[in-house]
């Protein structure tokens, strides 16, 4: 405690954009460590848990949620200015989350379908990951994030080292857990081969296929896997729909979904008609919501 008075404790903020609150809840779910963390870190902003408020500055800020409204767009730039390290937590902040499914559809029609007075509702045409607007220093994936990874990140930040986060497919974790492959043995489509682990291959352990909570791992061969789903009897759009979930807006899932018409209400856009490479290569959800454009306007 004497140390706390001489060395200032790191200032942590938790900020929420469009999300379910589940990833910030994970901080409160570190039941065995929460009070010890609070002894070492000054949690200056965490509106879900404390009435104390601070708009910064922060040594570390954890950002949950997708950028989805004009206010959030302003907010994320402000938060970036106030933060030494900005860490995105969860599928919404890192990949746009489930609300990014609207990026393939007509936003005005969505708004009118849900609300009697759509003119009362302010939201951007697209929901985007935070990194589309501001620099992100580190990310924790998952829908929700994994408690162990959160603890590793916080500990690493406290001790000034790089967090040790996994970098392999769900498949690898599944095999190590000694599970029988649900795709091979039961013909259940599974995103395990193309998805980053972090959950401990949870779904195959529950006799179901992975649905991609932690998003695509590097060099994921989504074309091959989706062709496999078609061989297993899915139509191409059904195969695309399996990717069109919580991390569907992350490449290369995004391009595949566009090509296969994976989002309900959309039609397939053959890859040949699109520009040759990268995110923009898949005609999909660009127009009003182009991250570069929207970011540049601010």
């Amino acid at each position: 405690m004497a140390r706390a008075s001489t060395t200032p404790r790191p200032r942590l903020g938790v900020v929420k954009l469009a999300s379910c609150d589940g990833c910030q809840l994970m901080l409160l779910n570190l039941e065995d460590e929460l009070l010890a963390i609070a002894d070492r870190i000054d949690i200056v902003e965490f509106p879900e848990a404390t009435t104390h408020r601070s708009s910064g500055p922060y040594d570390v800020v954890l950002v949950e949620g997708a950028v989805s409204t004009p206010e959030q767009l302003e907010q994320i730039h402000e938060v970036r200015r106030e933060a030494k390290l900005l860490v995105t937590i969860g599928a919404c902040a890192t990949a746009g989350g489930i609300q990014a499914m609207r990026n393939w559809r007509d936003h005005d029609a969505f708004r009118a379908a849900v609300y009697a007075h759509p003119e009362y509702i302010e939201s951007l045409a697209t929901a985007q990951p935070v990194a589309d607007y501001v620099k992100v220093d580190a990310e924790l994936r998952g829908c929700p994030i994994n408690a162990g990874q959160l603890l590793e990140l916080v500990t690493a930040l406290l001790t000034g080292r790089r967090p040790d986060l996994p970098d392999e497919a769900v498949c690898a974790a599944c095999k190590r857990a000694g599970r029988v492959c649900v795709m091979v043995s039961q013909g259940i489509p599974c995103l395990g081969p193309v998805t980053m682990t972090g959950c401990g291959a949870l779904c195959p352990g529950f006799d179901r296929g992975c649905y991609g909570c932690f998003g695509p791992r590097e060099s994921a061969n989504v074309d091959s896997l989706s062709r496999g789903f078609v061989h297993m009897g899915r139509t191409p759009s059904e195969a695309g729909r399996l990717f069109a979930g919580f991390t569907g807006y992350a490449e290369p899932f995004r391009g595949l979904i566009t090509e296969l018409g994976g989002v309900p209400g959309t039609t397939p856009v053959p890859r040949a008609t699109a520009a040759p490479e990268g995110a923009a290569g898949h005609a999909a959800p660009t127009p009003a919501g182009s991250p570069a454009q929207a970011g540049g306007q601010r």
Partner: protein
Amino acid sequence: MTTDAPAFERSFRVEGITRVEGEGSLHLVVRGGEVTEARLKIFEAPRYFEQVVVGRHPDQVIDIVARICGICPEAYQMSAAGAFESIFGVQVDPQVRALRRLLYAGEYIESHALHVYLLHAPDFLGYASAIDLAKDHRAVVEQGLALKKVGNDLMAVVGGRSIHPVNVRVGGLYRVPARDELLAMRPRLVAALEQAKATLEFVARFDAPPFEREVRLVSLRHPSEYPLFDGRIVSHDGSIDVGIGEWRSVFHEEHHEGTNALHARTATGETYQLGPSARVTIAAEQLHPIAREALEQTGLAGQIARNPFWSIAARGVELVHYCAEAIDIIDAYERPARPFEPWTPRAGAAGWGSEAPRGICWHHWETDAQGMVTRAQIVPPTSQNQGQIEADLRGFAPGVLDLEHAEATRRLEQLIRSYDPCISCATHFIDLTVDAS
């Protein structure tokens, strides 16, 4: 500061209500001692769930609707599953149904322990957060965290994880646990039951602001079970009593300017209260005997029905109930032959509701002949409570005008927190603005 001069106007603004789930604000104007405006605004960004689910398979929809709320994902999963099972005519195996109750019990223990200890108790004890509370009363906060952890771990055993569990599907579950897996939780639940009783005794000694009013309490009611995902929708005064699918016959939603949530009212435009106080009042007979006895010992049953601040005691009663019921479910468990009943898709429509920790979460789903979703209506509990919260703010505010501004504001926020508003659900931001002009 005087407040009684008729021309004097005073306004309370809180632009970011804390210790609630999501983002909202309060704006309250008092003129001449009377509240002329009381608005709880919900700023949470719209996420368009009711559109995202269209064209999707029901099992994928069950995974998607969990993401409406990280604190009560089961409420959304169970309401959706119930509606789909009603459309497709699926009967869930009784042991699988018991496992669903066990999973949902975990959600109650986790959500109520979070609310009682981390969100609401600091109000009663004069702290800004549980972290500040822990500086003076570490053992109290540790007890709350321990209880919360048991709830989370119970959800993980049955559902795979506590936030966005992966085990619910139409017709049942993906996987049913072996008896031994559940038995491993039993001793911890026995300890948690004692902690839950201690919690109720602890909160029953709190000093709740004296604020009694007549209100229409609404919950599910089942003849033999504490209300969770089955039964009828009823009010405590008997004026409402309809089937679980018939919510629309007695309530409707309205869209008001300045909020991203739709407000619900009775057909005659009246507000009503959902949640633990409503359930404990309406379903006192169905409480586990241990919980009923614990409630009686507090002597607070009447207060719980009339004073919204005493919802904290109702949560304590339900913590006791769900720890006790979870033990009973584990003791009676026999692993079912198969985890789910197969079903055949058909075109249809059905409403269903389940009791989220903060009140009835009601859904209406329509499917096409392939079983794909064509239309969805999701009515979260907070948007139903929102009208009653505003009515209570109007009723309660005149009584706090003699207090200094910061204290009056704190009391108003405490009242809002009594409802455990889940604004991420309602659309999703609470922000209480209280300024003196």
